[in-house]
């Protein structure tokens, strides 16, 4: 579905990605974990065309999308729920969801809305509330719900559990699993919460300072002692996983 080959990218002179290769197959959940500043957000943003890749290739379902502007990439069925949620704070929940359906056929709106509200009943109770007055967890639900309104084939999620209570984190991850299982949406998930992400994911990659340091199935990585030490068990994280 999504294939990233030898991707280099950065901000101005600063290079943040030094040759990334990953691929996400249809129907999979792939997790991407790594310390702060490893370049996870940059990777998702570069896949979406902003910043532009300085070298390498991104293909979506066989089509080369490297260098396309962001909105055209979105129209090819790739939805991105960016870091920090980025909902529209002054607009109502319903308006936010309607914005998510901007590129979808307006005739599907009602069905898509019912589907998303089925996943997030909390949003259904708050349709007229302003986005900015939702709780953090509700905002995250709105960000995911909004991304789903365009009927994407591939969903990129950047830290959906950021700042949420453990119970809500579990809910969010259950919903991601549901989206993947029942609606057949392929998911590329960036997470700090490595335990949940690795339990959920079919496959996972570990990123260290702009490179993929380790790859494997979710279960493999969960049991990998190095991963356990650095990303689970309250380890210090850092860039200590060797690149070898």
């Amino acid at each position: 579905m999504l294939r990233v080959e030898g991707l280099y990218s950065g901000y101005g002179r600063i290079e943040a990605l030094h040759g990334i290769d990953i691929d996400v197959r249809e129907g999979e959940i792939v997790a991407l974990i790594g310390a702060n500043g490893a370049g996870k957000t940059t990777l998702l943003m570069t896949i979406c065309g902003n910043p532009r890749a300085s070298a390498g290739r991104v293909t979506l379902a066989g089509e080369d999308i490297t260098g396309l502007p962001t909105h055209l990439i979105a129209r090819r069925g790739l939805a991105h729920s960016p870091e920090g949620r980025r909902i529209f704070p002054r607009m109502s929940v319903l308006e936010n969801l309607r914005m998510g359906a901007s590129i979808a056929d307006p005739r599907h709106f009602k069905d898509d809305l019912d589907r998303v509200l089925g996943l997030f009943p909390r949003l259904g109770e708050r349709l007229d509330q302003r986005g900015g007055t939702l709780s953090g967890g509700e905002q995250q639900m709105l960000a995911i719900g909004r991304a789903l309104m365009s009927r994407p084939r591939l969903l990129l999620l950047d830290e959906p559990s950021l700042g949420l209570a453990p119970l809500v984190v579990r809910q969010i991850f259950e919903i991601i699993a549901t989206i993947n299982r029942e609606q057949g949406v392929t998911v590329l998930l960036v997470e700090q919460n490595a335990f949940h992400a690795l339990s959920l994911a079919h496959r996972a990659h570990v990123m260290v300072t702009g490179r993929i340091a380790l790859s494997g199935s979710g279960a493999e990585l969960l049991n990998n002692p190095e991963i356990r030490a650095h990303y689970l068990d309250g380890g210090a994280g850092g860039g200590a996983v060797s690149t070898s």
Partner: protein
Amino acid sequence: MAAALSPPLIRSAALAAVVAALLALPLMGVRLVDSSSGLSLAGRPDLVAWAAGGVFCGRLLIDLFRRWIADFSIRLPLPPPPPDWTRFAVGWGLALFALVLPFLPFADRNLVDKATMVLIYIMLGWGLNIVVGLAGLLDLGFVAFYAVGAYSYALLSLTFGLSFWVCLPLAGLFAAVFGIALGFPVLRLRGDYLAIVTLGFGEIIRIVLQNWQDLTGGPIGISGIERPSLFGLSFKAVPPEGQTSFAEFFGLDYSADHRVIFLYFLILILALATNLFTLRIRRLPVGRAWEALREDEIACRSLGINPTTIKLSAFALGAMFAGFAGSFFATRQGFISPESFTFIESAMILAIVVLGGMGSQIGIVLAALLLVGLPEWFRDLQMYRMLAFGAAMVLIMLWKPSGLLSSRAPTIRLGGRA
């Protein structure tokens, strides 16, 4: 309010007074006197004392006022946004009032004339609201499109003899093209940078009008612009060859008031059309995208929205309405010159939008009445008029920092109109 006069308040007021005194010393504190030994300087400590004292009291009052408002808002729960029917009622009430205004007993020619002026600014405010209020693009050169509309009408009408009704859409179109021309280079700019470039654009247009003598008549302007007619009925005392006059047609005695009232209704219709257009487009995908773009451009892109077309459409449509208003202005005055299109006009329109509450249609009406209407009526105050204007602005910003009406109605509700 008991413990209100606390030391920090007095200290801040005293500090302001000292600054005022320092400023007043060179500005007001000395004057030249003509004495027998030639010119000499005399001190005027009383004026400096007045300035410092005035600032001290003013500062104190403002602080107390602020505290009082803060107390108030802590004690009271936030008021819920007004229900839709009040918006509806107020909107239609104002529209009805505007419709019957010229026929009310106290409405003389002077009042209708001033109401026309206010309506021009309301229409300009509604046009700029698309750009600034909805799309969030700070435009300091809006008057340029007003000027393009006015000159388009004047030149088309004088050169080709086209009627107002033919020129009106053309003027709107030209203004929209200029809107796009401004939009392209500033697509990547936001905030302060955008404001500076649009400010420059406004000045460029004015300076071109001033210097392109052959076309625009330069600083002298264009006079003898054709006045509008109602389906070919002229409003002149002696209609031109082959035309009937309005008074003759309806069997009325000729009165100059007819034209004044006609112009009033003309701008009323144009303004209402602008309003209905905005209310409608807010509920369409383009309009909603304007507001979303104001909130978060990155999120918009990732939802598949092309910011380029959305921004350009806001610039073009806002400019189009300014173009309509401009041609109305030209036909009403019969004379235009670059002097009518200075930066101060842009600032005024922007002030109306900002004080009205950035995006609120009724707020803009209130702000236009306050900023354009009141000063017109208080011309008797003469030199204190601008002082009153400034004071009104400061008071609004203190009392309602986010504008007169800052609540926003959602553009879509479940089960409602989409």
